[in-house]
């Protein structure tokens, strides 16, 4: 998809967006509220056939940002959905894993390190933190203690079939 076509197609979801920013020719940011992120990502992945790259979670001042990076490889352009989660106490957002299976791990990782609840995620188990990492301590939150005490008997990263083995 050429750049002009991409830009005109992005107009189709304008009502879901707060703004479209383009700091450089091949870097486009779509700003939206958390509730609209699923619809925007669905449009980018299925409607525009862009390649999903990864998602980035950020603890910004007073809110969380989830950035879904998509790539249009024909022009080397990143189209990034910037979703704002306004509730800093109980952050949650709709999971895109049912739409893009490749997003399963990054949503689990973001859940681990930032404590964001991905609604309707098929499998939101712990992915990257160690087994004795305490519950409710999120290392990439700005307010995270520098070195939390390891927890006794905390939830381990169990495998799907573990209940089948004694």
């Amino acid at each position: 998809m050429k750049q002009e076509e991409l830009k005109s197609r992005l107009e189709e979801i304008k009502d879901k967006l707060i703004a479209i920013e383009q700091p450089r020719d091949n870097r486009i940011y779509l700003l939206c509220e958390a509730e609209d992120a699923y619809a925007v990502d669905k449009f980018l992945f299925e409607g525009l056939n862009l390649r999903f790259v990864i998602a980035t979670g950020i603890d910004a001042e007073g809110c969380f940002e989830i950035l879904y990076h998509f790539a249009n490889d024909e022009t080397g352009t990143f189209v990034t959905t910037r979703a704002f989660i306004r509730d800093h106490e109980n952050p949650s957002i709709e999971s895109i894993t049912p739409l893009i299976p490749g997003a399963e791990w990054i949503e689990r990782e973001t859940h681990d390190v930032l404590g964001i609840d991905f609604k309707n995620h098929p499998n939101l188990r712990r992915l990257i933190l160690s087994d004795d990492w305490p519950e409710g301590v999120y290392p990439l939150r700005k307010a995270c203690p520098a070195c939390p005490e390891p927890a006794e008997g905390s939830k381990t990263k169990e495998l799907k079939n573990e209940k089948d083995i004694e």
Partner: protein
Amino acid sequence: MKKILNKPVLAVGPFHPLQEEAEFFQLTLDGEIVTDIDMRISYNHRGIEAISETLQFDQVPFLVSRVCGICSASHPLAYVNAVEEIAGITPPERAQYVRVIINELERIHSHMLWVGLAGHFIGYDTVFMWAWKYREPVLDILEEITGNRNNYGNVKVGGCREDVPNEMIPKIRQKLDELEKKVEMLVKVVLDDPVIHARLKGVGVLTKEAARQYAVAGPTARGSGIAIDVRRDDPYAAYSDLDWNVITQPEGDVFAKAVVRLLEVLESIKIIRQAVDKLPDGPIDMEVKEIPAGEGCGHAEAPRGETFHYVRSDGGNRPVRHKIRAPSFVNVPSFRASCIGQHIADVTITLAAVDPCYSCTERLAVVDGHNNVIHDYESLLKLSREKTARIKKEIL
């Protein structure tokens, strides 16, 4: 010993059988056919993204070159691409060419390492010995330029740390000429060997649609017919001045991925030859005063695929957020698509075909639920090799 209650479960790990790194696979079996796969990773989680927020912008390249020893040129490069995007700077031309040379040498040694291991696992130890022998001169060149065989730490914001000396160019050319002949021979051996065809074709197929769904990168995507390559799509360093081909294969099986990697070595040789021919004179770094507030997406084509770094700056001297996505993070989950329905003798090579990358050691246990037997690493290796021997007997 653990008693199996319901389904037969095959446990691979916690150390990867081929790459000898920490990872755990749990395969659910029906007879010898895999019906489900679950994975557990991060035995070696080092919190690099969090550490990066405590370092200054010019210290981070040394940190991210330790994300992976093999990809220690691509990670810093993706990072500096992101930071240079924030700062709006373009490093001197010679630095751009040096970056290309180091990155392509890295690709050659990484692909040769994989070819050797893949050969070892299907019982072709000659391929293993040869591929690793031919890889050695490439590491020598890297050591001579950067001081290290791995963990080069050669790029920095605004340029490079070590230069490729002009006196070294004839030597690089000569080593590449020798390597090219050997790789051409290896390619011929692989493409002409009926046993390798029979053993690897149709094994561990990742369809084009599944590759898109799992958002895979690099040779894993190109082996499934998706022609993506950051070097061509969003050129960085000096790639836009150089001429080479993006190798793709439509089949998506292990054989296709092997062919992609082998042919890419030849393309990399082509790239380095052009880069040393065109290597301009001049400085290899520039002064970078400060990094303004802003955000940048940087990516680079590592041997295993696109390495992606997102950096955000608030105008201070440290990144406020630094997200790293290594290609294996998206390639490994695609095992769900490529392993289910496979025979267990094919699983080791299928798992190895994406060239996964974690950190080191080895152990493996297989639990056969029907017979209640525990196989070890050796016996799974034996299963894989026996299948090759069987095919060999049928063909020859």
